[in-house]
């Protein structure tokens, strides 16, 4: 686990700012020059506002990192780790759905202040970076979010966005604006759909009428030439519906580019409701296999996220993506001798005996 927010010693006071760490640079504008003490690991940096230093929770490479500094609280957040593929910006903790397995239960925060800082941070990101925008529900700040996309499209059209949204907040009037955005910058919308059955979907997201609204809005996004990735978390309440969902998607939502079938992240509500939600696909992988069969037969780009390779049938392993972000990924003892470890998603940091799949094993070819 890589800790991304920790305390720092900041010599000046003022509002939060964004800086980029560059070794040997002269501190100017948004750039901070820094050095790492070989003995103590302390990172000392100099910015035109003053000096700051911090003790990293674990030793790491900080070159090119983009940091959010809060002088008032002497806190620091690593917004971008230049050496990571898994950079996510949390847009808000608010959400209008309350999914039964939410890994990050919503809080009623006010997050508008983040946008100007995030825009600055994104414009400093490495070339062709892929940045995930997550929540909560980012489109609750739709105006700010679309503004951010437009600003970045002008300044940094090489950036790729992956936005995790519940798709509940689009209206027809957004279509021309979205089309213009999609024409100028790469955006993949990751949108959850749990079942082809409205009642099952709505029981999971805990929002009446969410299904119909989602269907309407998926078509609006399609009309706006969006790239769409449908995301389906596999749990006891929907696992036997996966095959029908595969048929539904391929029949009615064939403009969708990707389908991510995901194993549950056992934290937050998922942890609280684990007994009711947990489905051990390593014992009974048939529903997952059958959904994949349909998806393949009907030419949907399907991937398994968060599924360790040993938990699915051998002929389905190549669908498993290394989807778990590096900072919260771990491997267990059994993995030590596994020959496919380097290609495997591994396990969430909070994977425990309670959420343990029975059939995990080292794969030796």
């Amino acid at each position: 686990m890589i800790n991304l927010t920790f305390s720092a010693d900041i010599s000046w006071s003022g509002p939060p700012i964004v800086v980029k760490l560059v070794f040997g640079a002269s501190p100017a504008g948004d750039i901070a020059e820094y050095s790492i003490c070989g003995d103590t690991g302390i990172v000392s940096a100099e910015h035109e506002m003053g000096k700051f230093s911090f003790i990293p929770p674990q030793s790491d490479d900080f070159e090119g990192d983009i940091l959010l500094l809060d002088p008032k609280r002497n806190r620091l957040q690593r917004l971008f780790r230049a050496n990571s593929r898994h950079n996510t910006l949390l847009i808000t903790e608010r959400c209008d759905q309350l999914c039964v397995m939410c890994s990050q239960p919503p809080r009623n925060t006010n997050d508008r202040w983040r946008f100007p800082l995030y825009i600055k941070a994104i414009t400093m990101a490495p070339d062709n970076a892929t940045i995930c925008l997550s929540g909560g529900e980012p489109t609750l700040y739709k105006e700010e979010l679309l503004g951010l996309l437009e600003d970045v499209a002008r300044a940094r059209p090489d950036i790729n966005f992956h936005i995790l949204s519940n798709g509940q907040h689009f209206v027809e009037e957004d279509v021309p604006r979205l089309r213009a955005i999609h024409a100028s910058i790469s955006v993949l919308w990751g949108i959850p759909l749990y079942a082809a059955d409205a009642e099952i979907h709505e029981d999971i997201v805990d929002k009446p009428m969410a299904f119909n609204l989602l269907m309407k809005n998926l078509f609006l996004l399609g009309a706006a030439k969006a790239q769409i990735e449908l995301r389906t978390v596999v749990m006891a309440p929907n696992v036997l519906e996966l095959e029908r969902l595969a048929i539904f998607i391929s029949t009615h939502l064939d403009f969708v580019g990707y389908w991510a079938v995901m194993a549950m992240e056992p934290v937050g509500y998922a942890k609280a409701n684990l007994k009711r939600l947990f489905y051990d696909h390593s014992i009974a992988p048939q529903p997952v296999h059958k959904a994949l069969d349909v998806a393949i037969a009907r030419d949907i780009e399907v991937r398994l996220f968060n599924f360790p390779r040993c938990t699915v049938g051998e002929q389905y392993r190549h669908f498993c993506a290394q989807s778990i972000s590096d900072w919260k990924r771990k491997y267990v003892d059994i993995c030590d001798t596994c020959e496919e470890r380097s290609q495997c998603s591994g396990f969430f940091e909070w994977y425990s005996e309670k959420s343990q799949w029975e059939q995990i094993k080292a794969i030796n070819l």
Partner: protein
Amino acid sequence: MRLKLPMKNRKLTAKVLKFLVPSLAAAGSLAFGADTQPGKASNPESAASPLLKNAKSLVSELESQQVYTLAQHSSHSSHGSHSSHSSHSSGGGRSISIDDEEFNELETRNYSSTPTSSVLPSSPALVEQRKLKILPGNSENFTNTVIQVQLALASKGFDVGAIDGSLHARSIAAIYEYQSSAGIPSDGKLSPTTLASLGIVAN
């Protein structure tokens, strides 16, 4: 308009499409999606072999979709019982300043699924707010039926795991195995055909 069981009834789905099409036309295009780039997700390697292997059974299964199942059994709690969570719509025209209260979030927020800061699950108070509802699968009738199925399969020599009335993965695996050995469409569900073939009358 509430869309139920869309796959059950193509007419229903057609209605939805009819409802949606004008909005697409209004948006200026029906020809969406054709030019999306497979940019982010790297493509799985060729998936031909499992496909060919399973194509035959797949086709027959697609033809014989079981629609009604106990898993969608009518005991849903009504949506009226959902606790009303405030919809957190954005803060209106309130002007935003970065004050202590707001930026404090960064510091105090729990560890979470997204890396902004971290990941502690929710506070216990939040977790408790999310009351468990009675889902299909929790009703008494359903539990009784599952126990009957578990007993029937166990007596036929299938490994159903715990005989506890819950449709857990071990029992689902046994149902799949039984279904394929009995030549019933295998969907892992307590379909009427499956129950009938086990001699069980569902309530």
